[in-house]
């Protein structure tokens, strides 16, 4: 198809590189440098989307990221479909496939457009008022079954991607002296000044090409050169400076505490096609000492009936299409404006041969230099204008307006350029918690005094003249560099010619639209919010602008009200008969423009999502086909199935093997802390419920740590290595928490103590060797230790050697069998394990995993913190209060035990449960009740904490927390499950070797 609207010129284009693309399946041509929007306009495509609620045909309104209408889906191969992209931002690439959204069956003919005919039904908040009954179907039935599904399907814009995204994303922290946001006139001047001061400067701009409004500037000269030449030279100089980085396609999307600024950078599509390993986007988390905001301003649409018809667009955008992309937005245009800047567009379009039928100015007078220039160029200018009607649905055909001179008339046109003036982009300033001040003269909110180390310059500071913007940018850049500790050069005069001042502007809706409940005068294009919706909201009591926003949804669309918020606010003020500052603004929130989730998530996916911690012995277990379980970040061997074995069989075999011979268990993940210092024992006395002062060197004690609120927090074995040195172990999951709790008390409460704590969790590979043949298994490898019962009894610790390397051997048992834990330097862990395993095999031994470990300890009635306990369980509940150092005046958690609840009678206590049918294994978590069929809503006596088939006992066993449980031994209780109640007899929690004879074997 020919590019009928293409004209000569267009600085952004490379005409030597034609590009073909499709939109809704139709092939079109464009050039490199085009955006999808400019190419569509060049090809005469006017309808590009359908609106959210009324499915009205919509065209392109703007040339930038503020675009509310031209949202498309863009696909590039499998998994690379992105909905809701603004055509004004999509850079054209060869073969690009774009589709329109929110229409069925086609963009031209959309069934949904019926809603436009029924529009009065769909006023603001209509859905709160209906879709409720009938109630005889059951409360909410109709909403759930009928209405909500319809509403949901109707809502939403683009279709959601379904395939995993194959692209990469990257994320970096960054630092600079001066961050300049926006590379327009003000930003460039600021960056140059800061760079000349020697500061580290980062200059970012969301556009593909830096330059901002200078790119479309055809008339002005700066420092004696045409503005675009100045731009090119300045960019070149900045690009050459070692202390400047220019990030294009990079928006500053959020301003957080202390100048922490989020930047999102898009990589250009051709680069990604050339190298698919490149990230599609980068997230820069920039900590800037100083920030210069030079984000420019956004042109405001005018509010009049049917102002949303395709072909009606912002004046400056039309100018950009012409000057950047060589696209005329129409053959015959009418300009309606309240601001001088639109005259520039009219002049440029006229020079390009476009017929400008009329410039209709809303103001009483249009006498500034730009209007004069327009008149001089032979363009008719009329004032006191008002737009009354638009003809044309799929595209504008004529406008009916009143103006002076000329009165009411209808002008045929294929495009209408509008300008309501300019809204400074104060988003980032406001996010940084700067307060905005309403400037009544300018009818704009402008930055007040900054709160963060920031300066605003140029149009975002409501400084609209080019010369003034440059000067302000220069000053801001210098001041920022100085504040960052650099010495800036003298201020620089940046003379400008050919940029006559432009002023004006209007806010809100004209009187003839206000109150006209028939007019479809749009305030928020994307969300289909009209003037009458704002009026209705206020009529219904939604007076606060925040209520207006939420009731009408104005400003909540994907453009976040960049075009609409000021108009909505002015309309609300007019309806409420109050002032704009009285009404106030809604909150500016990040992101400035939508940012891809992937960019926030960065590289954190698959294996990089979270570190998987593996023990030194992991590889061996993996080779043996072990199943692993996640415990925190650790991967722990869960069980070691042999060929054909399921978990249950493997665990039974492992358990029997340990009880009969020997088993090896990788306990390396247990937390370990070395507690050293003169007061180490005293410190442990205070941190743990147990007594430690008298623990002999070489002996171990089971330690129980409470929270200050009196509940069991963690447990472990603590061995005394020397009078001033202890080896403390913790649970796998509790390691970090225990160390943190210890440091907290040590540094802030028990500051009288001289103690130092060092985590040694990963220093040691810990191999538990358990079973009657444990001693035989380790004996050949251990040097320098007498392993006899007398010399090395249960609960002892010795430093020696194993396999020739230093080893810390503890005689401890979590299985109830004779047991040792051999700690060797992690780097040797695997080899020592292999040696021990080979030896164990000689004794018929095996490796066992966490599941068997759990069963073995349950047979013994040993608790697992986090399984028997949940942070609400006391030592007394567990029957572990014997461990409390009774003579101690104080330890963490002690005082709380006297509070009413921990001391209460009838608390849940740990008991054993044996099912009447020994083959039935109770469900963990099942509630324990006194009767088989407790009425719904009745209280449980407790719950099953652990439950396993026990190979040792040839039957199932369970542990439970049961109210007053110890007094119920022998009673029959019930475990209630979905399948019904299972009877079980309460027993003591230890099922095997209650006297502990085997421990001492």
């Amino acid at each position: 198809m020919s590019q009928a609207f293409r004209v000569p010129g267009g600085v952004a284009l490379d005409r030597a590189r034609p590009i073909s693309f499709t939109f809704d399946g139709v092939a079109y041509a464009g050039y490199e440098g085009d955006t999808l929007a400019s190419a569509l306009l060049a090809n005469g495509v006017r309808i590009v989307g359908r609106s959210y609620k009324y499915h009205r045909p919509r065209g392109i309104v703007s040339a930038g990221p503020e675009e509310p209408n031209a949202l498309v889906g863009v696909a590039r191969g499998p998994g690379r479909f992105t909905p809701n992209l603004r055509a004004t931002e999509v850079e054209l690439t060869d073969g690009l496939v774009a589709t329109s959204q929110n229409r069925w069956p086609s963009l031209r003919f959309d069934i949904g457009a019926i809603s436009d005919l029924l529009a009065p039904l769909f006023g603001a908040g209509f859905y709160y008022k209906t879709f409720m009954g009938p109630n005889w179907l059951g409360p909410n039935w109709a909403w759930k079954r009928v209405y909500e599904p319809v509403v949901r399907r109707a809502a939403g814009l683009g279709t959601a991607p379904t395939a995993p995204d194959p692209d990469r994303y990257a994320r970096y922290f960054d630092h600079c002296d001066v961050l300049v946001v926006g590379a327009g006139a003000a930003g460039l001047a600021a960056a140059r000044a800061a760079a000349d001061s020697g500061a580290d400067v980062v200059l970012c701009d969301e556009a593909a090409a830096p330059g901002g409004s200078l790119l479309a500037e055809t008339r002005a000269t700066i420092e004696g050169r045409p503005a675009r030449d100045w731009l090119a030279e300045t960019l070149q100089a900045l690009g050459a400076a070692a202390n400047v980085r220019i990030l294009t396609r990079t928006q500053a999307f959020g301003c957080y505490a202390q100048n922490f600024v989020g930047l999102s950078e898009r990589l250009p599509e051709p680069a990604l096609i050339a190298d698919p390993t490149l990230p599609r986007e980068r997230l820069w988390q920039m900590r800037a000492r100083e920030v210069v905001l030079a984000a420019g301003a956004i042109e405001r649409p005018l509010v009049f009936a049917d102002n949303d018809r395709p072909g009606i667009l912002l004046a400056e955008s039309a100018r950009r299409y012409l000057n950047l992309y060589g696209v005329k937005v129409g053959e015959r245009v009418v300009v309606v404006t309240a601001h001088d800047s639109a005259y520039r567009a009219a002049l440029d379009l006229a020079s390009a041969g476009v017929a400008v039928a009329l410039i209709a100015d809303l103001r009483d007078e249009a006498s500034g230099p730009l209007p004069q220039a327009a008149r001089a160029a032979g363009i008719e200018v009329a004032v006191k204008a008002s737009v009354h009607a638009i003809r044309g649905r799929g595209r504008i055909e004529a406008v009916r307006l009143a103006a002076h001179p000329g009165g009411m008339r209808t002008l045929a046109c294929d495009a209408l350029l509008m300008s309501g003036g300019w809204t400074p982009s104060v988003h980032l300033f406001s996010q940084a918690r700067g307060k905005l001040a309403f400037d009544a003269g300018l009818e704009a909110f402008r930055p007040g005094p900054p709160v963060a180390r920031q300066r605003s310059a140029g149009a975002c500071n409501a400084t609209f003249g080019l010369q003034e913007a440059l000067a302000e940018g220069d000053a801001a850049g210098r001041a920022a560099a100085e504040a960052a500790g650099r010495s800036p050069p003298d201020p620089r005069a940046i003379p400008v010619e050919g940029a006559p001042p432009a002023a004006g502007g209007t806010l809100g809706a004209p009187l003839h639209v206000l109150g006209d409940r028939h007019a479809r005068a749009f305030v928020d294009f994307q969300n289909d919010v009209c003037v009458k919706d704002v009026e209705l909201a206020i009529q219904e009591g939604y007076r606060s602008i925040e209520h207006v926003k939420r009731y009408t949804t104005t400003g909540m669309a994907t453009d976040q009200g960049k075009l609409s918020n000021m108009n909505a606010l002015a309309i609300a003020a007019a309806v409420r008969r109050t002032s704009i500052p009285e009404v106030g603004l809604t909150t500016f929130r990040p992101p400035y423009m939508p940012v891809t989730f992937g960019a926030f998530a960065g590289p954190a996916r698959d294996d990089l999502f979270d570190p998987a911690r593996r023990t030194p012995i992991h590889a061996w277990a993996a080779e043996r086909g072990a199943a692993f379980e996640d415990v925190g970040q650790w991967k722990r061997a869960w069980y070691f199935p042999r060929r054909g074995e399921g978990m249950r069989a493997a665990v039974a075999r492992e358990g029997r093997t340990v009880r009969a011979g020997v088993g090896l268990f990788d306990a390396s993940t247990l937390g370990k802390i070395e507690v050293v210092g003169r007061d180490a024992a005293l410190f442990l006395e205070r941190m743990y419920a147990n007594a430690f002062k008298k623990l002999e060197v070489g002996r171990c004690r089971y330690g129980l740590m409470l929270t200050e609120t009196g509940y069991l927090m963690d447990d472990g074995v603590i061995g005394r290595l020397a009078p001033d040195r202890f080896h403390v172990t913790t649970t796998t999951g509790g390691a970090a928490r225990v160390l943190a709790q210890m440091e907290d008390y040590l540094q802030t409460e028990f500051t009288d103590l001289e103690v130092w704590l060092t985590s040694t969790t990963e220093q040691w590979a810990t191999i538990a060797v358990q079973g009657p043949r444990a001693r035989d298994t380790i004996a050949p490898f251990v040097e320098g230790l007498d392993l006899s019962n007398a010399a090395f009894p249960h609960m002892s610790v010795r430093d020696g050697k194993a396999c020739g390397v230093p080893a810390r051997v503890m005689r401890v048992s979590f299985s109830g069998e004779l047991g040792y834990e051999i700690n060797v330097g992690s780097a040797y862990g695997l080899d020592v394990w292999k040696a021990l395993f080979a030896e164990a095999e000689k004794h018929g031994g095996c490796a066992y995993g966490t599941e068997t470990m759990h069963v073995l300890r349950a047979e013994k009635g040993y608790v697992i913190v986090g399984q028997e306990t949940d942070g609400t369980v006391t030592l007394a509940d567990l029957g572990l209060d014997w461990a409390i150092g009774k003579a101690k005046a104080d330890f963490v958690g002690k005082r709380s035990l006297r509070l009413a609840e921990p001391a209460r009678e009838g608390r849940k206590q740990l008991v054993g449960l044996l099912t009447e049918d020994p083959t039935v294994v109770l469900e963990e978590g099942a509630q324990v009740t006194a009767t088989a069929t407790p009425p719904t809503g009745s209280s449980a006596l407790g719950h099953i904490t652990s439950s396993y088939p026990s190979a040792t006992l040839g039957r199932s066993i369970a542990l439970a927390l049961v109210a007053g449980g110890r007094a119920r031994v022998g009673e029959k209780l019930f475990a209630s499950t979905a399948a019904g109640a299972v009877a079980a007899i309460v027993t003591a929690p230890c099922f095997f070797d209650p006297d502990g004879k085997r421990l001492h074997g």
Partner: protein
Amino acid sequence: MADPWLTPRSPLDDLSLPVGDKFALADMPPAARFVFRGAEAARAACSTAFGVALPKALGAAGSAGERAALWLGPDEWLLLAEGESAETVAAAIEAGLADVSHALVDVSHRQVALEVTGRDAARVLSAGCPLDLRTKSFPVGMATRTLFDKVDITLWRRGETDFRIEVWRSFSPWLAAALTEAARGAPAA
């Protein structure tokens, strides 16, 4: 009876680490490592016994030959002795500190070291490390405990484009993979 097969293993052993001028990762040979804790007298005595002045404040990392002492906190240092046996080094230090209260804990196996070099080294580290790594803020010689994303590291700058990272061993494969990925995504410098 140290069997010949008992050679120290590192989780980084079997990984293929990136090499190049832009960015390279290498795993460092085993070292004796200690966390040393104590007050000023202990610091002074340890400096003598270890042969490296333990720095008094953040930023300074003392080193002499293959030995180094990094400031971790006001009474905490990381002592490194590459290629030495922990037992011997410990014995020497303990001998020099018999009368001074302190804590010396062997962490030789707790962590491993990665060397990060190349033009992009600082940029790649900045993928996970939130500190300002420009040389004016993080000069050559500075060492500190910090973060790489979700993992605690000790970062020591040994040259403009030469860093050493000490990291707990179970985190090291993840860290190597994360750094490799970060290098891939970094913009051309």
